[in-house]
């Protein structure tokens, strides 16, 4: 067994960590998060320049052709800086789907534009009543003329308002929660009958509600084989969860470091808080959670390239576990800071918010506990 990073992975880690450290201080992050678009074109440009937007793709698209560990590394660095740039939506989800399903022309035009930082993507998949169920798609795709007409609603779409192109999942056949019968379609942001309503998220990211009221797209907008897209959807979600697990670990590291530092400096009753044993133990609980989360993230990252049955158990284990550990770390970080931890002005509160909100993306603890149990049954 070998837990060490390869030379390339170490370089990737150094590059992205330096970028975050040097250009993404907390104040700047807050400004970026509060901006209309919810991210910075400058930072995005820098990420593109450093080759970060191509990481998961093949070399011909300027990528490293790399897998889970790289995504985890990127996530960790971004978690440390609470980076809100649309990496998950554009590169991991959107780019990932094009990478897996796109035609040669689609890859040529879109992947290059994504890697170059010119095009932003969003994956419009969740629906108002789908909760976290990835097969649940009611949005309808009907064949009309040479193309398709899309009708339905999509909800809590990451960076949906900033995207130039949406990748919309829609049902072609089957019941609303069948894995078969789902198609994926590219929809430009200026499409007629498309309404995108963006809002900030409570953790500083941005999401959108989307209404498709008979949006017409041509045959060239179809991604992959209509009706047979579920496996790719599941796979990009697995990648997203690996990155998110890394992000949670990065954010937890900072939350633990900041809290430990605070306990050492804050004095009450003439002593540093760090001298109260009960607080030491609670800090230790945070540290234990961080370690567990890290292990689950590593496991999921390393299993990303394995066959579905193996991969998905690690993915659900990571997401279920991290949901619980991130809550422990987030809540204790606030509690141990006392009143100051409750304020907008201190970074640790925003780390706590992101940590808790990570549970609401791609399935929460309960969703993945159940899924893990089912996968485990099936494997037995």
């Amino acid at each position, binding site marked *: 067994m070998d837990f060490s990073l390869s030379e390339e992975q170490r370089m990737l880690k150094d590059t992205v960590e330096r970028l975050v450290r040097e250009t993404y201080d907390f104040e700047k992050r807050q400004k970026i998060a509060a901006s209309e678009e919810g991210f910075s074109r400058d930072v995005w440009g820098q990420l593109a320049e450093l080759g970060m937007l191509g990481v998961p793709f093949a070399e011909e698209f300027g990528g490293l052709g790399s897998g889970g560990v790289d995504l985890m590394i990127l996530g960790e660095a971004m978690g440390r800086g609470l980076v809100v740039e649309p990496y998950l939506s554009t590169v991991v989800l959107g780019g990932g789907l094009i990478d897996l399903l796109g035609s040669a022309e689609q890859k040529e035009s879109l992947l290059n534009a994504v890697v170059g930082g010119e095009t932003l993507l969003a994956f419009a998949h969740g629906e108002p009543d789908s909760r976290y169920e990835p097969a649940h798609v009611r949005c309808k795709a009907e064949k009309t003329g040479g193309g398709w007409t899309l009708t339905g609603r999509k*909800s809590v779409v990451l960076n949906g308002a900033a995207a130039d192109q949406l990748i919309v999942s829609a049902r072609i056949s089957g019941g609303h929660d069948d894995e078969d019968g789902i198609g994926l379609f590219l929809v430009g942001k200026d499409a007629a009958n498309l309404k995108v309503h963006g809002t900030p998220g*409570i953790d500083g990211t941005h999401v959108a509600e989307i209404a498709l009221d008979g949006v017409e797209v041509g045959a060239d907008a179809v991604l992959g084989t209509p009706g047979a897209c579920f496996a790719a959807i599941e796979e990009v979600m697995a990648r997203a969860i690996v990155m998110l697990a890394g992000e949670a670990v990065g954010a937890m590291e900072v939350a633990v470091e900041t809290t430990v530092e605070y306990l050492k400096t804050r004095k009450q009753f003439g002593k540093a808080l760090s001298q109260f044993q009960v607080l030491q133990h609670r800090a230790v609980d945070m540290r234990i959670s961080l370690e567990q989360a890290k292990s689950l993230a590593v496991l999921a990252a390393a299993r990303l390239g394995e066959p579905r049955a193996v991969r998905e158990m690690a993915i659900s284990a990571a997401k279920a576990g991290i949901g619980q550990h991130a809550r422990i770390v987030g*809540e204790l970080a606030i509690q141990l800071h006392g009143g100051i931890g409750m*304020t907008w002005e201190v970074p640790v509160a925003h780390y706590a918010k992101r940590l808790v909100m990570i549970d609401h993306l791609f399935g929460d603890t*309960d969703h993945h506990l159940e899924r893990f149990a089912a996968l485990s049954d099936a494997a037995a």
Partner: protein
Amino acid sequence: MDLNFTPEELAFREEVRTFLKSKLPDDIRAKIKGGKRLVKDDYFRWHKALSEQGWLGSNWPTEYGGPGWDPVRKHIFEEECYAYGAPRILPFGVNMVAPVIMKFGNQAQKDYYLPRILDLTDWWCQGYSEPGSGSDLASLRTSAVREGDHYIINGQKTWTTLGQHADMIFCLVRTNPDAAKPQEGISFILVDMNTPGVTVRPIILLEGEHEVNEVWFDNVKVPAENLVGEENKGWTYAKYLLTHERTGIANVGSSKAALLHLKAIARDQVKNGRPLIEDPLFRNRIAKVEIDLMAHEMTNLRVLAEVQSGGAPGLESSILKIRGTEIRQEITDLARRAIGPYAMPFQSEALDEGFNGEPVGPDYAAPIAQQYFNMRKLSIYGGSNEIQKNIIAKAGLGL
């Protein structure tokens, strides 16, 4: 043993219900039920309705205008208020400073301040905490120096809840910096917020709301008659206030109302094609907190019965504080899980009355995540839960 309420108590419950139905303004109730933001006038109108009924000072003895309720009636009253959707009663005037004035104030102070609290002429806020003095309140540094018939106050208070609305603040100040122990040399003083040199600055909490403030004192000249009791004896009064403050400490009424709301959400949300409330995992989570709340309510009632028959609660009130806040927090955690992905959108403007923008998600979703984060305060303020455990260990168990 009989765990049922007496016929008189049940009749009292009906009386409270009837009052709420006719006197709590509908718009305020709608705001509470919808998790909307309250403005000062909402609190004011509700307090006014209570005041006119003679029910505002529910802890007050009848000689000062209280209704003369026993602890069980106070409990029933609180529970009904939350169940119906009334705002919480702001404690700073009626339940905090008033008991101190009654017990330690002079006649002039009683005659002047108590009626003004009851008829809402003065809104109060609490100036205890300072940036360097939270859990260790006795280390406070804001100074009050006697000059003729005035005190000159300098320093900074913080975390002052709703100080932006207040007319008066009751403060702990240091009058003797050379006292042998930090607890000595502290005085309890009443300050008009409109005095020159008082500055209130907002602190925005992590969920984006303005609820607390910094209050700065820059050579603030306060008449010496605003001192309550004796100089340098403020710590005794402060402790009296903290131990006297029992209303709502257990959070039973608000937790019950929040649990009902949680169940309503879980009935509406769908998981795997069925109502979330039928999901085995989520069901168990709700059941667990409901049982915790039942145990907690019984503890509260046992303590109340004890108080009713003349006993004084010791470690029990710390237990009530800890469990009450943990349970309340757990319910808000389940609520944020219940709304699933819709916990994410941050729609601050949707909390305003009359918001007519585009709603995102189900109508109950907007305030849920914000409430979850805001409720983290419960285990920090009012003597943090760690401090309560220290108290139980030391005073309760003799450890």
